[in-house]
C-alpha cells in the first residue's frame, strides 16, 4: 500500500484515537488548515505527550526563581535588579540530516527563546554527541559541519560561545545530538511574558519573510525515528540567517526597552500555529489571524503552509492599537519587516482568515491543552541494550600507557580544535574562557576603568553544561543525578553557587518499554539531585525518538546550570599556578570502573553499577571548594571527572604548564570515576590547612609515585593532538 492511500491524519502523524478525539472536540471533521495545525500542536515535539506527566516530578521552585518552566525561557534573580534567563534545547534530528544548518538554526532558535523573554543573549553553550570519529567518516563530517554551523550563527550575531561539551559513542552514529543553550541578561522590569493580553490589541509579525522552509519539521523530523531515505527530508530543515536575527534581536530589545509590547513570542517549531496558539492559551484569549497579510518569500503559498512554515528569524508581538505606528517605526529603523496580521479577541477561539475569508477556527484549549498525554510503560531491560567496542588498550597495560590513551581519547582530549572556531569574548564579559576553568565565568556589570584593581567586587555568573550517556546507561537514576552533581561541581571550581538549571532529555523511542524505563528513572534521578543540592529546574526541552535501526542512543540527559559568584576577580581556574604549592584531594571519592572511560578503552559495555553517593558529603565538598576559591586560598580547583584522578591531575598540569608529584591514597584506582564528588585543588601549605595533601606542584613531569612518570611536554602533546589529529 502506498503512503498516499493512508487517511490524511495518519500521514500527518496522528493516531486514529487522536483523530477521534479531535472530531469529538470539534463536533465535526477538521478542515485542511485545521488538521495541519492540530497535527503539529499534537505532535510529540509540541505537546510533550510522552513526557509531560514525568516532568511534573522535577522541582521547579526556589528562592531565586523569577520565571519557571512554561515561558520561552526560565529566569533567576542574580541581584542588583538583574535577571538571568536561560534554556537548553535540542536540534538533533535536523542536524542529523543537514548538520551545518541544523546546528546553526538550533543556536538561532534558542537565542530567540531568550530574547523573547526580554533578555539580551550574553552566552551560548553547546552539548554535542557523535559516533566514533576515529572510525566514522560520517561522524567527522557531522562534527565539522555542526561546529561550523554553531560558529557561523553565534559569531555572526555577536553572542559569545563560552563553553560546551562533546562526547563520541557508537550509539550516536546515526543519531547525533546537538543541544544548544543560551543565557541572557535582563533588568527585572524587562522580563516579558508570551501571554497575549488585551482584547482588541493588534498582533504584529516581524522579522524574516515566510517561505516554505521547514514545513512540518517538528512533526516530521522531531517526532519519529530516523531511518532510510532521510535525504528526502532535507527540505524540512530550515536555513539560518544570523544577520536577520541580529537585527531582529536589537529591534525586539529596543521595542521592549521602550515599553511598546504587551507580549512577545518567538516563532519556532510549528511556526505561527504554535506561537500564536500558545500566546492565546497563556493569555486565556482568542486570536484572529489573516494569513493573507503575512509577507511571503514565495508566492502562492497555501494558508496551511503559511500557518505551519518554520521559516527562521521571526517574532510575534501583541501591541495596543495606539502604539502600532511606533512599533512599526522601530522595526523600520532596524530594517526589519513588520506587519499587523491580526488581533486579540475574547472568543477563546483561534480563527484563521485568508484575505478576510474564514479558513479555520479551532478552540484554543483543543489546540494547546487537549492533546492526550500518555503514560509510559516502563520495563527495565532484560538483556543489555548496548555492547562494548573494540579493545583499544589492554587491561594489563602499564599505567603510563593507559593515561596516555585516556588523554588522547576523543572524549577527553583537548577541544581546542573545536572552540577555536567560536568567538568566546564578544560583549566583553568573559572572565574565564574555554579550558581556563571548569565553568565559564561572565562579569555582570559593564567593565570599565572604575572596576579595576581595588574597586568594588564584580558580581559574576558561572555557567556549565554537562551530560554523560555512558554512565546514565549504566544506571539511569544514579547517572542522571551524577550529571547534576558534576555540573554543580564545575560551578564550585570557579567559586559559584548554583541558582537554577535547565535540562534537555535526549532519549530513544518512549513507546518502547526499556526506553520508557530509562526516561522515567533518569527523571527521578534528576529530581532527587535537584532536591539534594537545592537547585530548581527553570525550563528545558525533551527530545525523544533518537533511534536508528541499530537501536536507541545512550540515554542522554544534558544539564545546563547557572550559578553566581560574588567577585569575578576571584574566579577559580584549572591550571596549577605556582611551583611549590601543595595539592589536596577534597571530597568523598569512591571511584569505580563501570561506565568509565578506561572501561570503554578496554572494550567494556556501559554496564554494572555506579558508586553509591553520600549527598551530605557532596554538599560539604562543594561548599569547601567554593569557599577556598572565593577566599583565594586555592590557586587552582578542578573536579575529578572522566578518566579519574590521574586525568584530573594531568589536566591541571597541562593548563598550568607545570609538573606535579602526587602519591595516591592507599588503594585508590587512578582511573576509576565517581563524578561530581571530588576535587583536586592547589595552594600554599597554610592555605590548605586541614585538607588531605596528596602532592605538590612543580617540575617538568607528572609523577604519580610508584605508578607513572611522564614529561609534561608529552602529556600536553598527547592531550592536544587526540581530537585534532582526527579532524582535517
Amino acid at each position: 500500500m502506498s503512503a498516499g492511500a493512508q487517511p490524511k491524519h495518519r500521514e500527518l502523524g496522528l493516531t486514529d484515537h487522536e483523530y477521534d478525539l479531535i472530531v469529538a472536540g470539534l463536533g465535526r471533521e477538521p478542515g485542511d488548515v485545521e488538521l495541519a495545525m492540530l497535527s503539529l500542536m499534537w505532535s510529540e515535539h509540541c505537546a510533550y505527550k510522552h513526557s509531560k506527566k514525568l516532568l511534573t516530578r522535577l522541582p521547579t521552585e526556589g528562592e531565586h526563581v523569577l520565571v519557571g518552566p512554561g515561558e520561552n525561557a526560565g529566569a533567576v534573580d542574580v541581584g542588583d535588579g538583574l535577571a538571568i534567563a536561560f534554556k537548553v534545547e535540542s536540534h538533533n534530528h535536523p542536524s542529523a540530516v543537514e548538520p551545518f544548518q541544523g546546528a546553526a538554526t538550533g543556536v538561532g532558535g534558542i537565542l530567540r527563546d531568550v530574547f523573547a523573554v526580554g533578555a539580551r543573549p550574553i552566552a551560548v553553550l553547546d552539548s554535542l554527541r557523535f559516533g566514533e570519529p576515529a572510525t566514522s567518516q560520517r561522524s567527522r563530517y557531522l562534527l565539522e559541519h555542526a561546529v561550523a554551523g554553531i560558529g557561523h550563527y553565534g559569531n555572526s550575531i555577536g553572542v559569545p560561545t563560552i563553553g560546551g561539551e562533546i562526547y563520541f559513542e557508537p550509539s550516536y552514529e546515526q543519531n547525533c545530538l546537538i543541544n544548544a543553550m543560551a543565557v541572557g541578561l535582563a533588568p527585572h522590569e524587562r522580563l516579558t511574558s508570551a501571554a497575549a493580553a488585551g482584547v482588541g490589541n493588534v498582533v504584529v509579525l516581524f522579522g524574516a519573510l515566510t517561505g516554505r522552509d521547514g514545513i512540518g519539521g517538528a512533526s516530521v523530523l522531531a517526532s519519529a525515528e530516523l531511518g532510510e531515505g532521510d535525504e528526502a527530508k532535507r527540505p524540512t530543515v530550515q536555513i539560518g540567517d544570523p544577520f536577520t536575527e541580529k537585527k531582529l534581536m536589537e529591534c525586539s530589545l529596543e521595542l521592549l526597552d521602550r515599553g511598546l509590547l504587551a507580549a512577545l513570542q518567538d516563532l519556532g517549531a510549528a511556526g505561527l500555529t504554535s506561537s500564536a496558539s500558545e500566546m492565546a492559551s497563556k493569555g486565556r484569549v482568542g486570536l484572529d489571524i489573516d494569513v493573507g497579510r503575512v509577507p511571503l518569500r514565495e508566492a502562492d503559498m497555501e494558508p496551511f503552509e503559511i500557518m505551519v512554515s518554520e521559516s527562521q528569524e521571526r517574532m510575534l508581538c501583541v501591541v495596543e492599537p495606539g502604539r502600532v505606528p511606533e512599533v512599526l517605526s522601530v522595526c523600520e529603523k532596524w530594517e526589519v519587516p513588520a506587519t499587523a496580521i491580526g488581533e486579540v479577541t475574547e472568543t477563546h477561539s483561534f480563527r484563521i482568515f485568508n484575505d478576510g475569508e474564514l479558513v479555520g477556527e479551532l478552540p484554543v484549549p483543543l489546540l494547546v491543552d487537549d492533546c492526550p498525554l500518555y503514560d509510559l510503560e516502563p520495563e527495565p531491560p532484560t538483556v543489555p541494550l548496548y555492547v562494548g567496542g573494540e579493545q583499544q588498550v589492554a587491561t594489563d597495560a602499564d599505567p603510563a600507557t593507559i593515561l596516555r590513551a585516556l588523554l588522547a581519547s576523543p572524549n577527553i582530549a583537548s577541544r581546542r580544535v573545536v572552540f577555536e572556531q567560536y568567538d568566546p569574548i564578544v560583549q566583553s564579559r568573559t572572565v574565564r574562557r574555554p579550558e581556563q576553568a571548569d565553568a565559564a565565568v561572565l562579569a555582570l556589570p559593564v567593565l570599565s576603568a572604575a572596576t579595576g584593581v581595588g574597586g568594588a567586587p564584580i558580581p559574576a555568573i558561572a555557567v556549565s553544561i554537562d551530560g554523560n550517556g555512558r554512565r546514565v546507561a549504566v544506571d539511569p537514576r544514579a547517572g542522571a543525578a551524577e550529571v547534576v552533581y558534576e555540573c554543580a561541581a564545575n560551578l564550585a571550581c570557579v567559586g559559584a553557587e548554583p541558582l537554577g538549571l535547565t535540562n534537555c532529555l535526549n532519549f530513544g523511542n518512549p513507546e518502547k518499554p526499556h526506553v520508557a524505563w530509562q526516561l522515567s528513572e533518569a527523571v527521578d534521578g534528576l529530581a532527587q539531585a535537584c532536591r539534594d543540592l537545592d537547585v530548581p529546574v527553570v525550563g528545558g526541552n525533551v527530545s525523544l525518538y533518537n533511534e536508528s535501526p541499530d537501536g536507541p542512543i545512550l540515554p542522554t540527559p544534558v544539564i545546563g546550570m547557572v550559578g553566581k559568584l560574588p567577585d569575578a576577580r576571584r574566579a577559580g581556574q584549572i591550571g596549577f599556578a605556582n611551583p611549590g604549592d601543595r595539592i589536596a584531594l577534597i571530597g568523598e571519592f569512591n571511584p569505580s570502573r563501570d561506565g568509565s572511560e578506561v572501561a570503554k578503552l578496554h572494550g567494556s559495555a556501559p554496564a554494572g553499577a555506579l558508586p553509591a553517593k553520600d549527598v551530605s558529603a557532596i554538599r560539604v565538598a562543594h561548599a569547601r571548594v567554593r569557599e577556598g576559591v572565593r577566599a583565594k586560598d586555592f590557586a587552582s580547583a578542578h573536579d575529578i571527572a572522566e578518566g579519574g584522578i590521574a586525568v584530573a591531575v594531568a589536566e591541571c598540569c597541562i593548563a598550568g604548564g607545570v609538573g606535579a608529584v602526587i602519591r595516591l591514597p592507599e588503594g585508590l584506582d587512578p582511573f576509576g570515576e565517581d563524578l561530581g564528588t571530588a576535587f583536586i585543588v592547589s595552594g600554599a601549605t597554610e592555605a590548605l590547612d586541614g585538607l588531605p595533601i596528596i602532592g605538590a606542584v612543580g617540575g617538568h613531569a607528572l609523577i604519580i609515585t610508584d605508578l607513572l612518570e611522564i614529561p609534561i611536554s608529552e602529556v600536553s602533546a598527547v592531550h592536544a593532538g587526540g581530537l585534532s589529529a582526527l579532524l582535517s
Partner: protein
Amino acid sequence: MKFGVIRFPGTCDDVDAQLAAARVGEAELLWHGDRDLKGVDAVVVPGGFSYGDYLRAGAIARFAPVMESVIEFANEGGLVLGICNGFQILCEAGLLPGALLDNESLKFVFRQVQMDVVDRNTPFTRNCPPTLSLPVKHMSGRYYSPEPVQVVLRYAADHNPNGSQDDIAGVVNIAGNVFGLMPHPEHAVDPLTGSEDGLTIFESIRAAVDERVRVA
C-alpha cells in the same frame, strides 16, 4: 577627546569598542544611516559581520551614508581605526591598500596571538610596547596586497593565525592617519578578561589627538 564608533547593521563589537575607548576619553556610537560624525576627534570602525558579510566582508558597509563622511574625515587627516571587519571595510572603501582574504584554514579562528609593533611612530602605536598580545577572531583575515604597504603590526613567529602575507596583522595608509588591524585591541583592555595590551592603542590615539589640539 571624543571617539565615534560606527554601528552598521550586523556590527558586533561596537559596544566593546565604545567601552574600550571610554577608558581613555569620551565615546559615542554613530549610526550607519547618519552622515553627521558629531564632531568626534577619531573614528573607530569596529568588528562584526556588517550586513551579514554574505557578500565579500565589508563590501556593502562601504556604501553606507556614514562612510562618505568617514572618507571625507580621513582625507582631511582625521584619525580612523578599523578593527577586524572595520579593517575589511576600510580596504573596501579604498582608505587602506590591499584586501582581506579568507583564512588559509577556511575556518573561523579565535586565538590569543603575539605580535610585534614594527612601527611605533604612528598616531596609533606611539604608546605601544614593542610586542602586544591580542585576541583575533575572524573568518577572512588573510591580508594581501600586491603593492608595498606600510606595515605596523606583524604576527610573531608561529603566531600567524590566517596565513597573511609577510605575517601582516595591521597597516597604515601613506598619510599615516588610517590604521587597520585584524586583532582586537578593544578586547584586551582589562586583565580580568585577558590582557591589557590593547589599551595602549587607544592611549596612543588619545595622545596624538591631544598633541594636535595643543599644536592647533
